[in-house]
């Protein structure tokens, strides 16, 4: 089970606790290799002190989410940008 990652879809609940829109349907660009794809296509490792999402192309970390008792930390340094679909 240790190497068993899940899809970026699994981030949906924890991200929706912070953001008002679904970020897993957003398109992100990897700072490491330029891969562009939906956040839902990232590889998420959960058996860890936080959630670690890696690029499916180069395996670099693109997003980290740590949930404390009364705070969350979101580290996006591996992401160049996020394109977020919004209702028109």
């Amino acid at each position, binding site marked *: 089970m240790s190497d068993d990652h899940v899809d970026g879809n699994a981030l949906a609940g924890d991200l929706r606790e912070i953001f008002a829109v679904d970020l897993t349907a957003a398109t992100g660009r990897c700072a490491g290799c330029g891969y562009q794809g939906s956040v839902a296509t990232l590889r998420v490792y959960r058996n860890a*002190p*936080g959630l*670690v999402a890696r690029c499916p192309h180069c395996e670099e*970390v693109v997003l980290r989410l*740590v949930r404390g*008792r009364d*705070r969350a930390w979101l580290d996006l340094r591996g992401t160049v940008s996020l394109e977020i679909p919004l209702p028109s």
Partner: protein
Amino acid sequence: MAIVSPGFTGRRRSPDAQLPPGQYLAEDFPVLTAGPTPRVTTDRWEFTVSTEVGQRYNWSWQQLMELPAEKITTDIHCVTKWSKLGTRWKGVSLDVLLEDVETAADYALVQSYGGYTTNLPLEDLLDGQAWVAYRYDDDDLTPEHGGPARLLVPHLYFWKSAKWVRGIQLLLEDEPGFWESAGYHDYGDPWREQRYQGD
């Protein structure tokens, strides 16, 4: 208020007075990982200490094996709340590895194969407090648990005991590692429950 699920206890035993606050006893040895498990063979393995002036000290696997090793029996405490008592390891003390290293640094950034990093004060690596461990329970350390070698700093939360260790960078200023830059505590003393920044 959370709804309590009657009869739900989770995979753990009740808290124990021997344990740091908020910790539970684990019977197995959970495997935590933030990415794919690096597979490093001992013929490719190398350990490097670099100082604040760029001086580098290297050890091959062979050279590590030739250094005096110690057997360590210790409790370990993971920030995800499990603790394990009396774990048995074998490894080389950092006192041995750092003996001839000249430095004025106060901090260390530990680096691993696979890109993981963690920071701690240099003094926490000295005086019989830290090892580069390569055996667990009389067996070679498996890749899942950080083999061929991992850092062992059992007086701090276990994320400081970097798996797949490949080097230590000695620094004049503290530089946050992988989890420390995403909310976890820079020091991480389990007895003071220093889980997150500000604890």
